[in-house]
């Protein structure tokens, strides 16, 4: 693949995701998530997805409300910021429509680290006394090097696709985030195929000036697009904060449909325009 061809439209990026794929999502709760990407999954009617994220919220909830999800691997799911439980997700699990693999956040990341390192499992601290180990059938072993300390081993988690939303990207896919990378380092390394959506296209020279800020080197990226306000209605530091009124409207919608919310999404303004 030539370097330049990585940049495409949001629609074309999402078209590459088959029904039934497992997708790891970047960010945490309402913050710097690839939310425009998730809404495009819904517009294209994707089905039977497996969503993987330590701390999802809006993204998983809206995908559940749209009926796009079959399975979830997650640590904690909530809309946060006083919005409480994620109702769409909750209903999907309670009705049995969505199968949950419950994690502690770091156990999920241990699985991602295993995949990122190319090994079948990864030790993780803690977990002792948690029934989460039982429901997942996680095994523990005694330290073979003499201390006998018992440690849980988490099987590798290798998402078919990972999508992260970055602050800046260049023409070759180098991407960086400002503020916390949350779980995106482990998540991006675990991917079979890595996509990046980003707020802004900048010159490669900017990346060369501060290479230590690059979270994802371009060679790892299979596809990318520029989506201003792509984390809406969540935050993207330092450019914008959570649009709390919109999250409230999403939660409160009297008809229990996501259409009014979807119709206000900022990426709709990009449709038909050229963003390569």
């Amino acid at each position, binding site marked *: 693949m030539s370097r330049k061809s990585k940049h495409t439209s949001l629609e074309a990026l999402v078209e590459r995701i088959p029904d039934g794929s497992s997708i790891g999502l970047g960010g945490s709760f309402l913050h710097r998530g690839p939310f425009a990407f998730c809404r495009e999954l819904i517009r294209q009617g994707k089905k039977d997805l497996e969503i993987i994220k330590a701390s999802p919220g809006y993204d998983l909830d809206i995908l559940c409300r749209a009926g796009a999800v079959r399975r979830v691997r997650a640590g904690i799911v909530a809309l946060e910021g006083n919005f409480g439980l994620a109702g769409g997700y909750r209903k999907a699990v309670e009705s049995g429509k969505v199968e949950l693999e419950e994690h502690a956040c770091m156990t999920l990341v241990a699985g991602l680290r295993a995949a990122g390192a190319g090994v079948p499992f990864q030790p993780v601290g803690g977990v*002792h*006394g948690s*029934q989460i180990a039982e429901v997942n059938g996680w095994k523990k072993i005694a330290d073979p090097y003499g201390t006998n300390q018992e440690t849980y081993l988490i099987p590798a988690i290798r998402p078919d696709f990972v999508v992260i939303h970055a602050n800046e990207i260049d023409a070759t896919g180098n991407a960086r985030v400002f503020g916390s990378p949350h779980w995106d380092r482990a998540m991006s390394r675990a991917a079979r195929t890595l996509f990046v959506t980003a707020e802004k296209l900048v010159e490669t020279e900017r990346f060369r000036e501060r290479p230590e800020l690059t979270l994802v080197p371009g060679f790892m990226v299979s596809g990318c697009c520029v989506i201003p306000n792509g984390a809406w209605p969540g*935050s993207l530091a330092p450019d914008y*904060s959570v649009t709390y009124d919109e999250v409230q409207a999403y939660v409160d919608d009297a008809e229990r449909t996501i259409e009014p919310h979807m119709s206000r999404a900022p990426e709709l303004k990009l449709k038909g325009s050229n963003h390569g």
Partner: protein
Amino acid sequence: MAERFTPFSYVVINLARVIRPDEVTFSGVNSTLPMLACLLAKRAYDFDFTWLNVAGGVDAELDGPVPLSSGDPALMHGSAAVFPNEEFYDLCTRGGMDLCFLGASQIDATGATNNSVIGDWHSPKVRLPGGGGSAVMMPTLRRAATWRTEHSARTLVDKLFFQTAKGNLQTVVTPLCVFDKRDGRLVVESYNPDVTVDQIRSVTGFTLDAATAKPTPAPTDAEIAALRSLDPDGRFAADANIQLPEFAA
């Protein structure tokens, strides 16, 4: 005359009082009241501690209103480092975390917690948010504190629906009292002066040990002033909507 607690200030101030000098303290996602407690301790108490938060901030200093989300990037402001999620978990499991505030939907008398389900895990009546870090952090940190805005037999239970985490939970703060774990069991350390031990017993699902309980010391002027500065228009108090239960006469 000393100020009295409101149910809201009782929870936030007593969470702040768990924080100790020179320790590493962490506040997480979905944790508005601990976020306020950490900010309150920074403003009201005359000692240093390291405050890590889930937004990646290290001793962040807000330059505006407190965000509604306890994981908001506003909690990075003034931080001289980014300490992301994987880092604070690794710090915890290698023994470097003194105090974490970890949420819980149900708590039993041994300090084990359920954040997973109401009902059977495999066919839940209510699917709860999940344990977040607690299964990994609870057994590996030095001590944890949790909070409930509702003190009832549904939240403080004899038997959990599911044991999401068990470990070093040391403190539980409710609007009615502060529990401390001693010899593996939660005991009432102090109680809200607006209620009696018998009233607390009547709404607690496990057998209450309050043999050494005393009234909680009144809030100090510094604590009240700090909380007012953090919630000047009462938005957080209104959102938390913490009420004392209706006790049988």
